């Protein structure tokens, strides 16, 4: 007997690491499906970072077991023991999971990821839990809401918690959950609250009234977010229009001609950015984040040089014939588009945002302000200020203004009008080049880039009048915001048409635009 007892003891100690201390993987492999579900639920309620690899393997269907119920994880076709150092006795067979278990694995995975370092992972996990949290996780969620530092993740967690509490038997807890939802201002909270208004879903009248007030609260917050969003995209569109139209307004004011190739200057600026990016990728990949800053002067000088060359060779010979200039510059634009198409291909080229221009800042649950658009608004304002300084505080600016107001008189006073024309044309084209750099950061860069902005920038010039920067600024932002406010109401196309109609009516009142230079000149 003692021998038998001894043997039994020995056997038990041998088995000890497998059963008593057996790890989660072994437990899971050995358990029946209903037991497995219970295990997963308990893991969800008490997450442990060490369990992550197991859950990942489960989620990807890589957990396997041999006939001795030893767990293995398949890695690249090889089976590695999940716990201890067993070599598989024979080829292990992968565990088969039913749909209910798969759902539970997702839940468990999400609650484990709540412990992750990166806020993005935690946010994704919280969003997942909004959909499939289990009542057992109430305590965990409560604790996480209290300790979460990231505001966005906390809102998501609050929602998940509220979702759980909404199905609680106790009306008081449901009431608290409804109040919580009301404070979040999240679009998801609105749909959740809307279902609660139905007496068939919610039998407690108090909770229903709370849902009503909560819904009003959420709707108000959402409305604020929407309005701010529209105002922001209007400002963003306005700043782009401003960059596109500023140069046009200067040359139109000075020479009285509309440069139809102005849109192509935008396009060339964007392609210059693309070239700079390529050079950085080739020769200085470590400093690639700085390429937009280098692209700015490059684009400015390239487009300014092309603009001055055009002025010298074509436009100069057409002074006094504005309509012919219109046609000639259209010809130039056709040639430039086709040239770019032959050199770079008809497809769009890829211009990537550097890290400091990608992503955005989340201001409200339904309002994200992308960094690139914020930077472009600031950039457009900088360009306006610089242009203003150039036109008002330098000799060149003085000459430009003199020629704009009265060409003949300026020439009499010794202003070299030819040179001023050339430099001003270069300046206008260069500003368009800067606009091209900005455009390359928010949209597609292709040969037709300029065509899509040219008509809008003409309208800015027509509306703003010439000779005054303020007119262009007001007109650009006005058009941008009007466009974005009308867009959700009546659609983008009808909005555009309505704005065109309004501009035609506006010109009835003020034929020279918003800000016209005073003068008594008549032909």
């Amino acid at each position: 007997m003692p021998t038998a007892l001894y043997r039994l003891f020995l056997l038990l100690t041998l088995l000890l690491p497998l059963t008593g201390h057996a790890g989660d993987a072994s437990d899971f492999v050995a358990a029946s499906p209903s037991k497995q579900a219970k295990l997963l639920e308990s893991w969800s309620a008490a997450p442990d970072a060490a369990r992550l690899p197991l859950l990942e393997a489960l989620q990807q269907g890589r957990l396997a077991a041999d006939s001795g119920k030893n767990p293995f994880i398949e890695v690249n076709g090889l089976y590695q023991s999940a716990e201890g150092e067993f070599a598989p006795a024979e080829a292990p067979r992968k565990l088969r999971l039913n749909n209910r278990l798969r759902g539970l694995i997702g839940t468990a995975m999400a609650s484990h990821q709540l412990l992750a370092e990166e806020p993005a992972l935690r946010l994704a996990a919280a969003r997942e839990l909004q959909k499939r949290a289990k009542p057992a996780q109430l305590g965990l969620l409560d604790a996480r809401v209290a300790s979460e530092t990231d505001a966005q993740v906390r809102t998501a967690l609050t929602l998940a918690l509220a979702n759980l509490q909404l199905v609680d038997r106790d009306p008081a807890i449901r009431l608290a959950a409804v109040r919580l939802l009301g404070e979040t201002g999240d679009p998801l909270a609105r749909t959740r609250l809307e279902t609660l208004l139905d007496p068939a879903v919610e039998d407690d009248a108090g909770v229903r009234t709370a849902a009503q007030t909560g819904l009003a609260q959420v709707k108000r917050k959402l409305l604020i977010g929407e309005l701010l969003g529209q105002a922001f995209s209007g400002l963003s569109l306005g700043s782009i229009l401003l960059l596109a139209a500023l140069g046009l307004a200067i040359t139109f004011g000075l020479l009285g001609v509309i440069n139809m190739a102005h849109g192509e200057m935008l396009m060339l600026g964007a392609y210059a950015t693309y070239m700079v990016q390529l050079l950085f990728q080739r020769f200085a990949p470590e400093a690639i984040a700085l390429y937009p800053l280098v692209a700015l002067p490059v684009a400015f000088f390239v487009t300014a040089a092309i603009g001055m060359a055009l002025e010298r060779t074509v436009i100069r010979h057409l002074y006094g014939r504005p309509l012919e200039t219109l046609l000639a510059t259209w010809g130039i634009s056709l040639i430039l588009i086709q040239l770019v198409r032959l050199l770079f291909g008809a497809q769009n080229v890829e211009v990537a945002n550097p890290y400091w221009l990608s992503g955005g800042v989340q201001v409200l649950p339904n309002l994200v302000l992308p960094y690139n658009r914020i930077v472009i608004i600031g950039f457009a304002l900088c360009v306006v200020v610089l242009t203003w300084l150039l036109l008002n505080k330098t000799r060149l600016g003085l000459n430009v203004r003199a020629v704009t107001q009265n060409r003949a008189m300026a020439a009499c006073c010794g202003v070299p009008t030819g040179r001023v024309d050339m430099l001003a044309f270069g300046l206008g084209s260069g500003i368009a080049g800067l606009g091209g750099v900005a455009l390359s950061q928010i949209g597609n860069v292709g040969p037709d880039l300029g065509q899509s902005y040219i008509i809008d920038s003409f309208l800015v010039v027509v509306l703003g009048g010439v000779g005054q920067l303020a007119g262009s600024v007001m007109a650009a932002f006005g058009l941008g915001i009007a466009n974005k406010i009308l867009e959700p109401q009546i659609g983008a196309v009808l909005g555009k048409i309505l704005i065109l109609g309004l501009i035609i009516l506006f010109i009835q009142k003020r034929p020279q635009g918003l800000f016209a230079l005073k003068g008594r000149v008549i032909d």
Partner: protein
Amino acid sequence: MNQPLAITVAQKAGPKVTLGVGALVLAVLIALPLLHLLPADNVLHVSAYTLTLVGKILCYCIVALALDLVWGYAGLLSLGHGLFFALGGYAMGMYLSREAAGDGLPAFMSFLAWTELPWYWYGTSNFLWALCLVVLAPGLLALVFGFFAFRSRIKGVYFSIMTQALTFAGMLLFFRNETGFGGNNGFTGFTRILGFDITAQGTRAALFIATLALLVGSLYLGFKLARSKFGRVLTAVRDAENRLMFCGYDPRGYKLFIWVLSAVLCGLAGALYVPQVGIINPSEMSPTNSIEAAVWVALGGRGTLIGPLLGAGLVNGMKSWFTVAFPEYWLFALGALFIGVTLYLPKGVIGLLRKRGEQ
């Protein structure tokens, strides 16, 4: 430039030569559809492709003539004549779609799962009402736009840009499926016109003759207008509008009349273009098309009546040849044409011929 250039040319070259060349061209154009009626194995048979191509170019000639009336005579460069052309085309396309669909709805409406026709389609199965629409749609639009534009004395570059924005807006509008004109596919798949098979030789020939008749008619009208006092006032509007006003004239009425007339001519040209080409879609309204029409006029010589026809024929002939031979270089050629004509040929080909005549 106290009088229209065509008259000067006719005087210099001698009326006999000009008339002779004109009569020859006209005779060839009349012969084309008749030769098309010959059996296919005949040596003199003109293929349907050639006939359609020439018919298309004749439609463009009418557009060029219409544009020349406002640009060459009244000094208003319109970059939106494609809109009027397309509106006329769409009005005719509505009739043709109804004809093709029989009693049912046009095919594109069935795709959109519409069950009844929008109100503006009312009566379009009637050819006469469709013809009225061909005149009314571009005419009324031009009337309203022109009234406001001329009232506030928009001219020069401003006017060009507003017209360009107008055609651009029209294009965007017609691209929408909800507008009820077939979205970006437009209308196509026409089968019959007035009960005749639209692809039959006889129908093609008749459409060609109709186009030619319209062209000759508008040319005659143009000559009459240009020689009249009305034409002189228009030229004065172009050259010195303010002085004209000081003389006691009100230029608004003159400008509005010629502007609406030009739009209606364009609409008629579009209406003849659609059954010959067999398709109309919103890209006809794209600003590119309208501005191309301006180079036809500029190349031929604006302020003359024959010049634009010459220009439209030359540019479109070149285009047909280039897009087959060197498709990638057509835009270069067109761009160079824009620059070259404005820099070196301010009076167009007609101006060149006139110089030769003087030497």
